Each structure stands twice: as structure tokens, then as C-alpha cells.
């Protein structure tokens, strides 16, 4: 009898996994960092790590479909004479015309308006498609000031001063040459076909003291009518919220690192900023200490996918949430029905993130007329409206189960956490215990 030593199974490194190795090879071959769209893809503590407790002996539930559960929210009541009145606590995040096609902006406007909520412009100005379809439109005031003009400022329903975004706190915008068409170039006052790098800092203010004066100027220009939002990337939420409030914001928007971008370096997306879940409680704490919780509204974004995420964000103290990536998926982004085309681009449905290349088979992140023509704004808008309604119904279902007659009555006490990390970030007890890590000294 012969004996063969049993071979060991080839073992790949957890540190040098397939993706890491492929990125080293790609970098060695091209000499340039990887650029992509979307937000952080790594596993992060998130809303999935929280659960609602529901009603029990001490809490009465409300009857589904019968007993009322409100979802309306007013944004900007602190100083603005014309605050935004939304029917649902879910808004559409800023995404630029340029990174998105005109049809996609049109569809976002249609869907949001049908659901009773707002959309937000982006770097590159206000497109006529979005203004005509969005009943409530938030006009972003960005470092680049592309397309910024007082006429559109006065047409807006609110103004959002963008300090940063979750995918890249501290980074500027990027729109590569293949998407700088004649129309995009004209709106941004740039030569056609160049790689556009937007500024990461505002050109005419630095720091909260300046921002206070900038906000005052915008209020003076718009006769103190428009709500003014300040958007920051998830980074130092306690201090950022306090400083935004000090600067005079009506609304603070915090975008966690799962929040999407049109085009940014992979290394930036995955390594700068903090998870959405970690942003909410410090932000709420800052508002509570200032006596302004629910008076200065807090909008949370970055990885919101369903009504449970909405309910959890609100329970932790947010007034509303904002969606970007999920809204694009509702329009038709990354649909497996186009798998052959995603494969041809070297990707697969569900993973396609080369939004900066302008070759999106779904016609959303492109300026190519043929591709853009594939997106029917009416149909896509209806899909978005459906999705927003489902998210709202889901959030109401959970709120009723917790005995709340308005989604804003959800509270941290309705939640528990599945992991120690989530318990610490959300400041709610680990499930089955009364332990909140960080409270009580350990």
C-alpha cells in the first residue's frame, strides 16, 4: 500500500484578498488611482444592526391601515418665512445634471412630486427638466458655484450650502471629459471635453464665522424667504452640527460614508468619513444641548434603503432622510435585466459603479443621447413614486407597531442593537440587555 500525503487546500490571504490583489495589479498597470461612483461598499455597522422592540405589555400598538400615523415634516421653520412642507420624511439627495442625464433629473422630479417630497440639484446648476417637474426643489450652493445665479436662486424652494458629502468629506467634485457635453459645458462655463475638477472649499468663505455671514447674505438676497440647509459629510457630527446651527442653518444634512458620489477615488470613498449610523446620535445631542432639536431639522442620508431604515433614523432623532443611490436603483440603475450590457462593460448588475464613464446602459449616469433615450422619465418617475410610497408605508407599519401616531414619535427607546458596535454608535442597548456601550464608563 502506498501512502500519499494529503495536500493542504490552497489558502488565500484575508489581507491580500482577490479584490486587493486586482487593485494592486490595476494600479501597477495604469499608474493612476481607481475612480468610481457610489458610496462605501465595505461592511459597516448600519441600520441592519438595529431592531425595533415593538409594543408589549407597556406599549399599545396602533391598528394598521385604520389608525392614523402621520408622516409629514416641515423643513426650515427656524428663520425662513416659506419653509418646505413635505408629505413624507424622505427627500431626494443632491445629484447633478451632468453626472445624471436630463431624463434622470426629469424622472426624479416627477417621482418626488407625486410622493409629496423634494428633489435637490447638484454641482452644475439647475436644469429646466428638474425645475419643471419638481414641485419642491432644493438648490445646492457648492464650492464650484457652477451654474449658480440669482435668477435660479429665487426660483428655488430652499438652498443647501454644501460643505461636504459622505462619500468624500474634504473632497471636491469630479466630472470626467466624456460627460462634459456642449450643454454641460455651457452650464458650468467650462471648455467641452475637459476633466472637470470642482473645488473642495468654498471660494469666498472659510469656517463657521464666515459661513454665518454667507448665510446672512443669501437670506438678504432671497428676502429671508428660503430655508437654508447646511450639508456636511459624516465626520465630526457633534461639532459640525453645533457649528452649522451657530452659523444660522435652518436645516442640517449629514451624509454618512455610505452616501454615493458620481465620481471619486475609491481610496477616498472607502477610507474617509464615518458610517451613517455613527452620525445621528452625536448630531441629535448637539441639537438637544442647544435646545433646538426639532426646531433646526436634521436630515440623515447615506445607505437608506427601505422603510425600516427610515424609521430607525427617525427613532434616533432625525427629522427626515435623504436618498440618492436607492432612488437611482428605483429608476432602473443596475437592473439585472441589462446584465449582458453590464458584463460587456466589465461589471455585473448590482456592482456597476463606473458612473463617471458616461456609458450607463440604464441611461441614468450618462450624457449620451442614445443611452439617455432609454430612460422614460414618466415611467421611471412612477417607479420612484411607488418606491417612496412603499418606504413610507413600511415606516408607518413599524411606527404603529411601536404605538406611535406619527413617525416622529419614534424614539431610541423603541430600539435595540444586534452588535456591540451598533449599540455604541446608536446609543441603544444590546438586544436582551440594558447595556449601552459607552454609558457608565465601559
Amino acid at each position, binding site marked *: 500500500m502506498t501512502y500519499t500525503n494529503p495536500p493542504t487546500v490552497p489558502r488565500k490571504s484575508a489581507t491580500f484578498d482577490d479584490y486587493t490583489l486586482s487593485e494592486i495589479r490595476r494600479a501597477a498597470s*495604469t*499608474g*493612476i488611482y481607481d475612480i468610481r461612483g457610489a458610496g462605501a461598499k465595505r461592511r459597516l455597522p448600519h441600520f441592519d444592526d438595529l431592531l425595533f422592540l415593538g409594543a408589549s405589555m407597556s406599549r399599545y400598538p396602533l391598528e394598521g391601515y385604520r389608525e392614523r400615523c402621520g408622516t409629514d415634516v416641515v423643513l426650515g421653520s427656524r428663520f425662513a418665512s416659506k419653509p418646505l412642507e413635505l408629505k413624507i420624511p424622505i427627500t431626494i439627495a443632491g445629484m447633478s445634471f451632468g453626472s445624471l442625464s436630463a431624463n434622470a433629473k426629469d424622472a426624479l422630479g416627477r417621482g418626488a412630486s407625486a410622493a409629496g417630497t423634494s428633489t435637490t440639484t447638484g454641482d452644475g446648476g439647475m436644469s429646466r427638466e428638474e425645475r419643471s417637474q419638481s414641485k419642491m426643489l432644493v438648490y445646492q450652493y457648492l464650492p*464650484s*458655484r457652477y451654474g*449658480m*445665479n*440669482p*435668477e435660479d*436662486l429665487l426660483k428655488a424652494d430652499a438652498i443647501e450650502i454644501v460643505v461636504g458629502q459622505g462619500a468624500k468629506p474634504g473632497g471636491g467634485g469630479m466630472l*470626467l*471629459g466624456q460627460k462634459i457635453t456642449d450643454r454641460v459645458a455651457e452650464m458650468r*462655463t*467650462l*471648455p467641452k*471635453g*475637459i*476633466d472637470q*475638477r470642482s*473645488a473642495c472649499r468654498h*471660494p*469666498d*468663505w472659510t469656517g463657521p464665522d*464666515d459661513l454665518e*455671514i*454667507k448665510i*446672512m*447674505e443669501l437670506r*438678504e*438676497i*432671497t*428676502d*429671508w424667504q428660503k430655508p437654508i440647509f447646511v450639508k456636511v459629510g459624516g465626520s465630526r457630527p457633534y461639532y459640525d452640527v453645533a457649528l452649522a446651527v451657530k452659523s444660522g442653518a435652518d436645516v442640517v444634512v449629514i451624509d454618512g460614508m455610505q452616501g454615493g458620489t458620481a465620481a471619486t477615488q475609491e481610496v477616498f470613498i472607502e477610507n474617509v468619513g464615518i458610517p451613517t449610523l455613527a452620525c445621528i446620535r452625536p448630531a441629535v445631542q448637539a441639537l438637544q444641548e442647544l435646545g433646538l432639536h426639532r426646531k433646526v431639522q436634521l436630515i440623515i442620508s447615506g445607505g437608506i434603503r427601505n422603510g425600516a431604515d427610515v424609521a430607525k433614523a427617525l427613532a434616533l432623532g432625525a427629522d427626515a432622510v435623504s436618498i440618492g443611490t436607492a432612488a437611482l436603483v428605483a429608476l432602473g440603475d443596475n437592473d439585472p435585466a441589462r446584465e449582458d450590457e453590464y458584463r460587456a462593460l466589465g461589471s455585473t448588475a448590482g456592482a456597476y459603479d463606473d458612473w463617471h464613464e458616461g456609458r450607463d446602459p440604464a441611461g441614468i449616469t450618462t450624457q449620451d443621447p442614445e443611452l439617455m433615450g432609454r430612460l422614460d422619465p414618466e415611467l421611471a418617475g412612477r417607479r420612484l413614486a411607488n418606491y417612496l410610497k412603499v418606504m413610507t408605508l413600511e415606516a408607518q407599519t413599524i411606527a404603529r407597531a411601536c404605538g406611535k401616531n406619527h413617525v416622529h414619535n419614534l424614539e431610541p427607546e423603541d430600539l435595540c442593537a444586534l452588535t456591540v458596535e451598533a449599540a455604541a454608535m446608536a446609543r441603544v442597548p444590546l438586544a436582551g440587555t440594558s447595556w449601552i456601550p459607552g454609558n457608565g464608563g465601559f
Partner: protein
Amino acid sequence: MPVVDLATAELRTLNQALHHQAPGSNETAWEVLNPHGAHAVAVGLNAPVTVTIKGSVGYYCGGMNREAQVVVDGSAGPGVAENMMSGQVRVKGDASQYAGATGHGGLLVVEGNASSRCGISMKGIDIVVRGNVGHMSAFMAQAGNLVVCGDAGDALGDSIYEARLFVRGSVKSLGADCIEKEMRPEHLKLLGELLGKAGFDGIDPTSFKRFGSARKLYNFSVDNADSYG
């Protein structure tokens, strides 16, 4: 002539009165007294009125101006005439940083000196400075003309796009992708017109040098990585 004394009147009252003048109003010349460095004076104007401010102002005077003529009979704080679309803003003294930032159109005249980042991200505005400008002026300047009758500081025109820069004195250094360019007859003609509009008729256009983009950084190339560093 309407006269608004900011020692007693609210700034909000002044700006809203200027925004909502009745069509055809003959109140086209306004005077503002005692600004005492107030911010956001005469911002968002949208009609062909003249507003003369007797004294120095703070941040963002004349911001987002359309059509109006704003005269600051003193000095101006940061961001004077920021994002101006049309009309004219004239500062008789000096201007602080970011003068004319992101302006799309119109004319900004600074009779004294302008500080750093004059014309940052300018998008079509014309800026004429009788004295000097500070460092990083015309940073990421996209379109329009910046005329400096004195000297320019460090890193002039860094990351410039298609704006044209004219400097009569010395330039301490040029920023990334900014180079000296040939002064052709059409540029001399343009420069003469800008100096004339600014009221600086005695200055010879041929005494200026022209600067603009080398256009080498318009599309990213790893071979240019050192230029970004």
C-alpha cells in the same frame, strides 16, 4: 434721491426696498450712509439703479448683482461683487480677499489694491484693479478678464481655465498651468476698452503682459502628476 442711514435703518429694509422697486420707478439713485462695515449691503440687486455707499462695507457688498451700479466710497471687505451677473461695482478704496469671486458678468473696478484670491473661480466677469492683487488671484478662473495695473502676488492663475489675465507690473510667480501668452492686437483693443470702462484712460495697454492657460492639465495624465503636487 432715497437716502438710507444704516445707523438707524435695518439692512433688511434697505435690501428689500432695492429688490422690490416698482417698474418704471424714478428712484434710480440711492445713497447709503453709515455702513460701518456692514455685511451684505446692496446684495441681489436686479434693476438698473445706482447705489452709492458712503463709507466702508464688510463682506459680500454687491453680491449677485444684476444691472445695478454700486459704488463703495470707502473700502470693501471679503467677497465684494461675488457672483455678479451684470452691472458694475466700483470700490474707491481697497478690496479684501475674494473680490469678484465666481462672477459671471459685469465689471468690478477696484481703485486701490485687492487682496488674495481676487477673481477666484471667475466665470465671465471683468475685473480691473488700479493697484496690486494678492496671492492666488484668478485661482481656477474659468472665463472673463482680470486686469491688474500694479503687481500680482504668488501663484497667479493657478489651475486657470479660459480667463485672460493682464498684469502691468511684476508677477511674483505663476500658478500651475498658467503661462505668459502673446499680446495680440485684439487683446490690446480689449484691454484698452476695459481700462476705459474703468476710468483709467491714462494707462498704456502696451505696458501690460498677458497670461492664460497652458491647457496641459485639462485632462488628467499620470505624467502630469507632479504638477498637481
